[in-house]
């Protein structure tokens, strides 16, 4: 096993058209769990399919350790990459039983029958599907099918496991259960995993590293904590956490973590000069006496608290949590205890 390197990877589907993937460079450490996060249509699947070998890069290269898997001229076919993939549609072969599905990669590799049976049994035990071994995929629920697909990845001890929005077709309850299964799977197999999702909560919960993409470009790669605390740029800031991005007059220093006095100073200044984007998370906004005035636009009761949408005097919107109910139209005074300059 070795680290997976994407080197200035690009892909255009049409000649001269807007590239679906644009100059993406990324290193996934051996045994890492990388979440590829971004809005729908930003090119995540295309990156994944290039890693798997289903698409050829139009520029750049993909390396596994020293070995070049693909560049614009040549590529190793998927058959020879020792990778595995969990598809959004599960991609189980309907004419094979669960056992046959899981055992097929071993069969292709010419593994003996006894060894195959043992490994399949192990893999099915790992996803807790022992008692379904002889069923057909059609007779399984969505979550069970996804676990069969995972078991199929498990048997061959692949170098890299690719997952393309594997939870998108499942209901919320099953998602939590499956997230747990993925984590276990990662710990057990030690494989490098790349997990594509458009759900930031899922990415944060599962991965050791998060890479954020938008319109084919890679915006930031960091640990979930880092991405959350120190996002780079308006797009990442808007995508991670439920924060609001304010456009304020630029301060004179280049401090990025802003406290309430710094925020007060920036809010007070007129916005005619150069502007800075500032990320404000709802939990950092507090209703206090003598803060800045904010008009309540809407209120959503979330059970343990109220989620408010507020408008500042200049019309920019903020989100905040409150324990007290409020009505649309109320004017509150709020303080912003912490903000992050993007």
């Amino acid at each position, binding site marked *: 096993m070795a680290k997976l390197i994407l080197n200035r990877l690009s892909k255009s589907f049409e000649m001269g058209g807007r590239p679906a993937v644009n100059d993406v460079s990324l290193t996934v450490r051996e045994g890492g769990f990388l979440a590829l996060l971004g809005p729908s249509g930003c090119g995540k699947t295309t990156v994944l399919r290039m890693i798997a070998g289903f698409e050829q890069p139009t520029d750049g290269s993909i390396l596994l350790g020293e070995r070049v898997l693909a560049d614009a001229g040549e*590529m*190793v076919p998927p058959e020879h990459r020792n990778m595995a993939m969990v598809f959004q549609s599960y991609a189980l072969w309907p004419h094979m039983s669960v056992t046959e599905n899981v055992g097929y990669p071993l069969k292709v590799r010419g593994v003996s029958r006894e060894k195959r049976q043992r490994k399949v049994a192990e893999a099915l035990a790992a996803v807790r599907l022992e008692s379904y071994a002889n069923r057909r995929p059609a007779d399984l629920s969505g979550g069970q099918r996804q676990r069969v697909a995972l078991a199929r990845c498990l048997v061959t001890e692949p170098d890299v496991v690719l997952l393309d929005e594997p939870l998108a077709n499942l209901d919320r309850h099953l998602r939590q259960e499956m997230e747990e299964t993925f984590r276990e799977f990662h710990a057990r197999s030690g494989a490098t995993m790349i997990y594509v999702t458009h759900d930031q909560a899922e990415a944060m919960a599962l991965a050791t590293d998060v890479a954020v993409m938008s319109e084919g470009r890679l915006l930031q790669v960091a640990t979930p904590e880092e991405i959350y605390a120190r996002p780079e740029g308006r797009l990442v800031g808007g995508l991670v956490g439920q924060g609001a991005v304010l456009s304020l007059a630029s301060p004179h220093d280049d401090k990025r973590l802003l406290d309430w006095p710094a925020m007060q100073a920036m809010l007070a200044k007129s916005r005619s000069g150069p502007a800075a984007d500032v990320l404000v998370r709802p939990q950092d906004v507090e209703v206090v006496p003598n803060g800045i005035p904010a008009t309540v636009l809407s209120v959503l009761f979330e059970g343990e608290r109220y989620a408010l949408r507020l408008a500042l005097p200049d019309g920019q919107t903020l989100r905040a949590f409150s324990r007290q109910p409020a009505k649309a139209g109320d004017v509150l005074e709020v303080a912003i205890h912490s903000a992050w300059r993007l």
Partner: protein
Amino acid sequence: MTRASHRGNSQPRWLFPFVITVIFFLSVLPLGRLAVTGIASAMQGGARQMLGDPGVWQAAYNTLFTSFFGMIAAVLLGGGFALLLTLFDIRGKTALGFLFMLPTMIPPQVTALSWIGMTGPSSTLLKAIGLAPPLGSPQPLYSIGGIALLYGVQNAPLVYLSLRAGLLALPRDGVEAARLAGASSWQVLRDVILPLSLPGLAAGAAIAFVSCVGNFGIPAILGIPASIYTLPTLIYSKFASFGPGTFGDVSLLSALIAILSIAGLAVEERVLRGRDYRVIGLSGQVAVFRLGSWRRMAELGLWLTIFVILFMPLTALVASSLAPAYGVPLSTSTATLHAYREILFRQAVTRTAFTNSIGLSLGTAFGLLVVTVLTGYFLVRGKSRFTRVISALAEIPYALPGIVLAVAFILLFAAPIPIIGVSIYGTIWIILIAYFSSFFAVSLKPVVSAFRQVDPSLEEAARLAGAGFGRRLRDILVPLVAPAAGASVILVFLIACNELTISALLWSAGTQTLGVAIYNLDDSGSFNLASALSVLVVVMVVAMMIVLELMAKRLPKGVVPWRS
């Protein structure tokens, strides 16, 4: 590990050259050869000479006349059935639909024989019930009108299918909206449904016309005895009296047929292109209108029609096949299986025909399947720019009348094959190759529909599992398209086994097919033997149609040609 230079697609490198080679030999080469001969002959004054030949004019006129009226009859019959069975609350629709589809699957020469057995002075059936016209009175079907009528019966199912497909695709909410707007059933039918279903009807009429133009079996049996020639039978007779100018003449005649067919197909293409409204709104089941007190009448009419166009001719055919010695009227005590014994056990000619036809059909069905699975995979999964051209080229040989294709293969193989110097003219191989070419599209269609239904990720998962192309084909793709492949084999077998047009031109002693044997038996006056052979053919057709009907649920839509 090797660094294969391998594009992102999943196909092995030999697949594209393979498909191109197949298309070249099955479509481009024979049709190109025909075009070259035709043009060369036209340049050498063949065209002028042909235009001066009144026989050609007469045949062209006969072809157009019979095809036009055949088309009208097909539209009346098929259109009526489609409207009644699709829009109204008729009982027993499935049975009626299946029975109505039968004539198109029964070979034309058998249809012609069975109708002859039903009419005229020598009809065993009429004689048995004492209704036969006096000896010496003419056989009414040996005429232009007779040919046109049987064209209508044979091709009515084509109109039925096309119109029915159009009706089933009608936007249901459009019909419901018209109803809510206060329109009566009759008004909805007149103002909404019929105008919207016109393209389906027109397309069906065009296909029926093309099919009539290329028909050989019916005018061969009904026309030749009365010296009425259509273009296909004229080609046949030119070969029978082979001369130095024959190749030039027949290539020009085939070109004429091809042009008529292409004109018909172009009409179909045009009217169907206007059907964009299909995608608007829900479609599916059309509202079923109640016939009320008219229902009984309508059902009676439908069954009566089936009785006249199907049961009566087939009964006559069976009667003819059981006919005792000449002059003895048929009754339960005089009926004899002599004819069956003769064709099955005594006559070497018919036994050879059975062997040939079954062998050719099996060879074509399974051989083509291998080719079409690979071609279908290429067409569906391929990212090639040529897929559209290749699909079109694969369709052409089947769209063209068989007689045109047969002429093309004669021209191609009349001389020994260059380089290897072997001549396959007059052997069974030329028929086999012509069958491959002609039925390529029949075999391809179910396979392509099945491949389209296979989620690409199923194959991608197999690739990541480490399976190469051959392995994926065997373990994943072929099992997934197996039902359609089965249907493809049965369909090709069914059509090839009943085929007459191609083999009529390509056979020689020892390579006759069932179609040829039936025709020759009739031609030599052994009407009872021809009828017995035809009965066996009909039994086989019905059996295979029933098998396909039973498989239909497991097949992609559109695979079984008579279901929509």
